[in-house]
């Protein structure tokens, strides 16, 4: 059996904090560099359960190509849903890190993200369910998944930013 990679919780938490800073600053090109070449970005619908995005309708199921398209779109002034760009604020709880085959670690960490578009403050609560690869240049997303702990999105709570 192949050896599992060793990544500490501190390394993962530093990675998640640095990622949050990039997202809050809308530094999306740098954020995109945090993905492996085949990295995905997913937000399941609450009733999709354990069904993969190839068999259930998610809110977001970007493969690498769609993810690039999403970032490009968000950098356009024609991405009306995020013009002006909303202010975001991310609280990320303690991460639990489990090594899994394929030189990956499974990361689970709770989040509370607030989005402040033009007036109201919209909370998003849930947890990250990421698969990270350990590379020479640091941790990288194989799968970046945000799971909502909500049965529906609250009024006005779009997923037009990166959650």
């Amino acid at each position: 059996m192949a050896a599992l990679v060793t990544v500490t919780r501190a390394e993962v938490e530093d990675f998640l904090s640095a990622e949050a800073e990039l997202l809050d600053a809308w530094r999306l090109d740098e954020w995109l560099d945090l993905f492996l070449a085949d990295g995905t970005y997913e937000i399941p619908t609450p009733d999709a359960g354990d069904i993969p995005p190839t068999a259930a309708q998610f809110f977001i199921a970007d493969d690498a190509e769609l993810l690039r398209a999403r970032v490009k779109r968000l950098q356009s002034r024609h991405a009306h849903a995020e013009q002006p760009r909303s202010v975001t604020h991310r609280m990320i709880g303690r991460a639990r890190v489990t090594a899994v085959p394929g030189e990956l670690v499974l990361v689970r960490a709770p989040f509370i993200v607030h989005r402040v578009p033009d007036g109201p403050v919209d909370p998003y609560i849930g947890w990250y369910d990421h698969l990270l690869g350990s590379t020479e240049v640091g941790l990288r997303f194989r799968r970046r998944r945000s799971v909502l702990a909500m049965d529906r999105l609250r009024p006005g709570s779009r997923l037009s930013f990166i959650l």
Partner: protein
Amino acid sequence: MTTWITEDPAALTFRVNREAFRSAEVFRAEQERIWGRHWLYLCHESEVPEPGDFRTRTVAGRGLLFVRDAAGQLRVYFNSCPHRGTVLAREPAGNAKVFQCFYHAWTFATSGELIALPDEAAYPPGASFRERLGLRPVARVESLRGFVFVSFDPEVVDLRTHLGVAADYIEMVADHSPAGMTVLPGTQRYTVRGNWKLAVENAMDGYHFLPTHATFVAWLRESGFHASDEGGKAVVLGRGHSALVQSGHSGRVGMCWEPRFGEAERARIDANRVELFARIGRDRGSVVADTSRILYVFPNLLLFDIEAISIRQLEPVAPGVTDVRAWELAPVDEPPEARALRIKVLVSFVGPGGLATPDDIEAYEAIQRGILATAGDPREGVDWNDISRGMTQELARAPADARLGGIVSRSIDEAGIRSFWRHWSEVIG
């Protein structure tokens, strides 16, 4: 009495009073006269395939419980115990042999009968007590090709009469596959800070597509597809229903190829089209396969037969708040790789996390915020929206198109939106 719409064919003006989107009084009148007296889309039959499968869903503010009973019949009840009113099924979905109210343990069969209650001796003897206190069904339930509608008005016209020509558009969706259609797992459920009528206007508005979805159109162009409004039609179907029919916005999974679908899908599409044309004829087959159709059924159903198929249900919560549920519909028998492509293509476009719908949502939320500015301004025309685009062509009375089933004008005009408002105004007064 307030005037809600003004239409002057001679001056080519059509205006809507913005108070119609803001007023609590209008909202109450709509609840009574629209939501209380029309057919409302409830669900697709495939959502409860097996006996005992049930779901709960709020429609027009009323909690409903729909279940496939032991004999296979779909039943729709108010989700409220006939005894003292408790919510009976408190799960969003499940499978049940019986429904038991947790409060006093009254137990009901899926077919509605009260079958057990503790200490029955304290009630009158005989069958009539139990018979009187079975689950309360909604007044009317009818379906068309798997699409189930309810009405709370016992006197409502039958569903076919209500749908009229719109029924044919539903049939075209059902015609995709000889094996039948099914709702896929995963509901996109979100709430918009906007009046429900703004969601209707947005769906029937071809004029917004290119400016609002500039980033999506740019992405399609990069993938090798040039989206265009050329030849797009708005079809007025009567009773407030309408449709946009387009062929230049995108390809259609399983039906009509575009480059981003890949070569394997191209071969599958070729085979599907042969089967489709043999089954329903080339004339109708080409409408089913090659046109993207967005159907609006008054008041709460939007059926998008576009890149893939999306069923969208509108549920007004307050004048400025609308709950939206969106399901993906697919042929039951398609291979896994085609299913994956279908889901990817739809999810990339629609929903609150797609590359396009968020901009639509922003549009109707921005209207709801924007129209606060002019509220109460007494000057002529200030607190009114203009819906007059393309009235000249509409009034030229183009003959009804037999294949499309109604009065046809350009998709980038506003005839569909006007037909909605005319019907709304007739109902609301």
